[in-house]
């Protein structure tokens, strides 16, 4: 036994183990073997697999390997339960969510110890972060359930949600997924990672304890195949996935064209930016929380350190000194900072990337203290790396920080965005101007100013770019589990039938419709035109036959018009009003054009033009009013939920309502600061091409609206495949093709919804939501 006298000399901390006994008892109670939780019952599976404690290598229990029949049974149970669950109403559901929150708190230490043993993360984190945040998510969403009917009156639940959660925050991400789904009136089939299923199974027990109606929550365990069965299940309405970008891509492909709603929360290589005027000691501690939290196995880990050159050496010296005091070891010890890596496979992958970094010339720093043998990895800093280095490009998902320097705020923004990902960022500066200037420039769903890895149920979380789409948490997160009530089937929006004989083209002088790219009329690259005819077959006019090069040019022009995103809402509104004014002056001409193309009656055609004018007014009105939110997470500070434009949006218009649908789509996008490449109705494109003259006379800056006519679906696919296009809105029959084309860079898509363009659902917040993405900027303050 170490004596007091010895310790007086060494002043070491000594061991402070958290007891594993209650968890061992719980595992024994289950004979160390777990069934599936389906329809409120524990259902035996045919096959099992073992779950290990990564810190010791010891087997904890056997978990079930669900078969596809088991998944089917779980979906059936969820489907059966959903109407009842929806019918009890928000207030009724709030009681259950509240009960779950309370039960998580009552069993908080059991959850914490279990999670630590199953995952390897330190007890300090499970006890102080994972479990309290999981409970907080259920409390917060009990509130959303209570307020659902009053706050989301035009929305309804999606139905059955399939949810697939990763191993890095097993319980916390389960809470992120289940709480909003249940609050909105959905039922769920959830699959935890095969590495870390135990806390989900304990959660299932809590659902029983809370007397949650049977089938509302179903937990199926097993390897990736089980997740695949969920993803491909025909009776699931929504897939929510958190995990690797690679698997996310597969899910995107598998769900393409199925009509399943999808949110993906994927990988990242988040920048951690330190300016010379930062509190450097504070920022060093921030870096510890950014990259050595949860062994760096965090999708939003601040893994790319960017330090202003003037303080880079000083900062790195402080950081290295701090690394020496990090304690790697037994996750159940209360004084452990860095626990076990989740598995030897993951450890090998981290090590391989570090070795590759060193081989490419990186300088490696690890603290002197010995790292325990087994599934542990020391905190690691790699310097002398550049943007081109593998370790700077690739997500390492381990306790490895790469460091580079920058010179100016502009360069900090460039380097921050020099990645395929866009999940999170930290910005450290004591100058509010510097910090709040950079925050909107970084393409990421979450920006932490002078803090890092802050999470709260009231604040949305989710990525830009290949980090996925959709938000979890806050008001913005609720929309991931709701849909507008008034969605009519496609057939309900008919093309106005011909009522009068077709009228021949009215132009006495031949007017040639061209493409409209970068504010200029452009001849199609291919040099071909196509004839547009009326329903009776009469020739109406020619339009250019756009091809992939025209799309390329249009996207390039749209990308160049980036300053539109920074124009004030007031300025954007003025231009939209001006468009309305100029369209109004040409009402008769546009009505005539619609009649000649579609055969619509005079009254109907005039009505379509007038509705289009009204729509322009609507989005001019919205341009300076679609405000973000100020969230109130539990800290002294605010989280600004800013509605940012998505970027360049490709829009493929439907054939019905050729002017109104066209207007209804580009106007909200442009009002929010996006630039668009619009593919008008393939059958009736001339109203859209006529419209470029309106744009020209209305001072619309070049490149903001680009119009390419031609084979719509072919061109839409080119847009969906284009890596410079951030989103595609597709209103045509072949959504599968477009969604598959969008898989490669995890592009956001909005497809296949039939909209009554002339009705109240033809405009409004739903369009604005698609035209924006929410960025949450956390700003703790204090003089």
């Amino acid at each position, binding site marked *: 036994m170490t004596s007091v006298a010895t310790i*007086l000399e060494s*002043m070491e901390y*000594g061991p402070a183990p958290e007891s594993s006994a209650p968890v061992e008892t719980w595992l024994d109670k289950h004979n160390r073997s777990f069934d599936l939780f389906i329809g409120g019952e524990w259902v035996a599976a045919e096959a099992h697999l073992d779950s290990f404690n990564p810190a010791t290598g010891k087997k904890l229990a056997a978990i079930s390997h669900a078969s596809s029949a088991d998944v089917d049974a779980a979906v059936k149970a969820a489907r059966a339960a959903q109407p009842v669950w929806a019918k009890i109403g928000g207030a009724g559901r709030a009681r259950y969510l509240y009960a779950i929150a309370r039960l998580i708190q009552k069993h908080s230490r059991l959850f914490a110890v279990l999670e630590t043993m199953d995952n390897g993360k330190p007890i300090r984190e499970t006890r102080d972060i994972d479990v309290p945040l999981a409970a907080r998510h259920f409390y917060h969403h009990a509130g959303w359930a209570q307020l659902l009917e009053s706050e989301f009156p035009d929305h309804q639940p999606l139905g059955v949600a399939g949810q697939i959660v990763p191993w890095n925050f097993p319980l916390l991400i389960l809470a992120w997924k289940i709480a909003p789904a249940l609050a909105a009136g959905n039922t769920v089939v959830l699959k935890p990672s095969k590495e870390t299923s135990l806390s989900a199974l304990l959660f299932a027990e809590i659902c029983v304890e809370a007397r949650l109606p049977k089938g509302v929550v179903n937990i199926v365990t097993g390897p990736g195949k089980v997740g695949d069965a969920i993803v491909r299940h025909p009776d699931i309405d929504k897939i929510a996935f958190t995990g690797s970008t690679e698997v996310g891509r597969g899910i995107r492909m598998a769900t393409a064209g199925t009509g399943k709603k999808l949110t993906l929360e994927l990988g990242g290589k988040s920048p951690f930016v330190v300016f010379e005027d930062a509190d450097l*000691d*504070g920022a060093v501690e921030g870096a510890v929380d950014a990259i050595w939290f949860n062994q760096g196995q965090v999708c939003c880990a601040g893994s790319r350190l960017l330090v202003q050159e003037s303080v880079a050496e000083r900062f790195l010296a402080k950081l290295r000194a701090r690394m020496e005091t990090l304690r790697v070891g037994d996750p159940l010890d209360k004084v452990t900072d860095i626990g076990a890596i989740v598995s030897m496979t993951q450890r090998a992958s981290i090590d391989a990337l570090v070795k590759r970094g060193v081989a490419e010339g990186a300088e490696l720093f690890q603290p002197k203290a010995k790292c325990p043998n087994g599934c542990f990895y020391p905190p690691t800093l790699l310097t002398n790396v550049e943007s081109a280095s593998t370790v700077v490009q690739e997500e390492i998902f381990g306790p490895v920080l790469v460091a580079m320097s920058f010179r100016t705020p502009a360069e900090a923004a460039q380097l921050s965005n020099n990645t395929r990902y866009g999940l999170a960022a930290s910005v450290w500066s004591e100058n509010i101007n510097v910090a709040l200037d950079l925050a909107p420039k970084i393409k990421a769903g979450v920006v932490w100013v002078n803090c890092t890895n802050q999470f709260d149920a009231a604040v949305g979380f989710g990525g830009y770019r290949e980090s996925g789409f959709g938000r979890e948490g806050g008001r913005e997160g609720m929309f991931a589990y709701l849909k507008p009530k008034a969605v009519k089937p496609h057939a309900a929006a008919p093309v106005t039938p011909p009522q009068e004989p077709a009228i021949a083209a009215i132009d006495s002088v031949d007017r040639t419709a061209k493409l409209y790219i970068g504010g200029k009329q452009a001849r199609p690259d291919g040099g071909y035109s196509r004839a547009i005819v009326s329903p009776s077959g009469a020739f109406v006019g020619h339009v250019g036959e756009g091809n992939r090069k025209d799309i390329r040019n249009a996207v390039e022009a749209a990308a160049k018009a980036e300053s539109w995103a920074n124009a004030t809402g007031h300025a954007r509104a003025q231009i939209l009003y001006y468009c309305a004014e100029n369209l109004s002056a040409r009402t008769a001409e546009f009505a005539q054009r619609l009649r000649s193309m579609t055969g619509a009656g005079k009254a109907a055609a005039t009505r379509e033009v007038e509705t289009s004018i009204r729509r322009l007014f609507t989005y001019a009105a919205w341009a300076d009013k679609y405000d973000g939110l100020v969230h109130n997470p539990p800290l002294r500070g605010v989280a600004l939920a800013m509605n940012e434009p998505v970027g360049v949006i490709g829009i493929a218009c439907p054939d019905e309502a050729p002017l109104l649908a066209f207007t209804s789509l580009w106007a909200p996008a442009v009002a929010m600061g996006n630039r668009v490449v619009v593919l008008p109705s393939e059958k009736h494109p001339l109203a859209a091409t006529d419209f470029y003259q309106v744009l020209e006379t209305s001072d619309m800056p070049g490149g903001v609206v680009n119009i390419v006519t031609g084979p719509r679906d072919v061109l839409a696919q080119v847009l969906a495949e284009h890596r410079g296009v951030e989103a595609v809105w597709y209103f045509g029959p072949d959504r599968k093709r477009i969604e598959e084309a969008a898989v490669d860079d995890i592009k956001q898509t909005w497809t296949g919804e039939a909209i009554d363009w002339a009705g109240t659902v033809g405009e409004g917040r739903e369009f604005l939501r698609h035209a924006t993405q929410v960025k949450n900027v956390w700003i*703790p303050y204090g003089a």
Partner: protein
Amino acid sequence: MLKIQPVPSNDHAPEGGRNPVAAFDADLIETVRVNRSAAERRVATLPGRRTVKKQWQAAWLVKAVQCIDLTTLAGDDTPGRVHRLCAKARQPVRQDLLEAMGIGDRGITTGAVCVYHAMVEPAVAALKGTNIPVAAVSTGFPAGLSPLPLRIKEIEASVAAGAREIDIVLNRSHVLTGNYRAVYDEVRAFREACGSAHLKTIIGAGDLGTLTNVARASMACMMAGADFIKTSTGKESVNATLAFALVMVRMIRTWRELTGFKVGFKPAGGISTTKDVMNYQFVMKEELGNDWLEPGLFRIGASSLLTDIERQLDHFVSGGRYSSAHRHPMG
């Protein structure tokens, strides 16, 4: 590194020599940045990240005892009261407890006894034969607003009376008006008046308004030759806090990075439980290292804390029986 001439060390100077007087450097003060939320987050999470149990806790608490500046600063102090306090400083923990822990022969005492000038002589007499220094609060304690020549004279008088440590107070108005040159000049004059006695500068953190001011005042004091920087007089409405401690010890670290010299730290006021004092110890170890757990570089200004530590040690030695204050001799 700043070029600073080392001064001759005396017997209680830290390894590497006593912090000397350096030239005034306005830049060094003005470029200090402290983010309050980040600092508070660090100290809010640290108690969850570090803990000591069983004999480790006992050893840490004994070490804390050795760092206590056992203090009485009351209007009704008398030689008799001070005598009792000094007796407690000589034997801060019951001998049977020390023996049970195997450290009965270590001569465990507190770090110092801290009194007003009038009580210096009785204290020195009461501590005769020990190596426990007497610290005198000085320079118009606690407000520090008496005439400068008188404040300097006060130091000289206390040193002459046998005080080996002088706890001076800053003129907080200089900090609040941003006049760090004046802070520096005064502290430097105090340092010179101290001679070989150690200078502990009380910055009055609770009066300074912001953590940034706390950091800047700390920096100015170290520049002017402070041996210790100290949070509080114990008379401010807010005394020692972990956030003040964090900010001040980080300045000590920066000073060391810049000059190589080690300056000590003394939180004072409101530290009354073992839990409190261990949190300060964690801040010291994590931010500065083990050297700053020793009385040469770490002092705790306290009075009632000692009883709580004794009760805790009794609990440890007795194998888990909770103790009571009346079982421990009062100070």
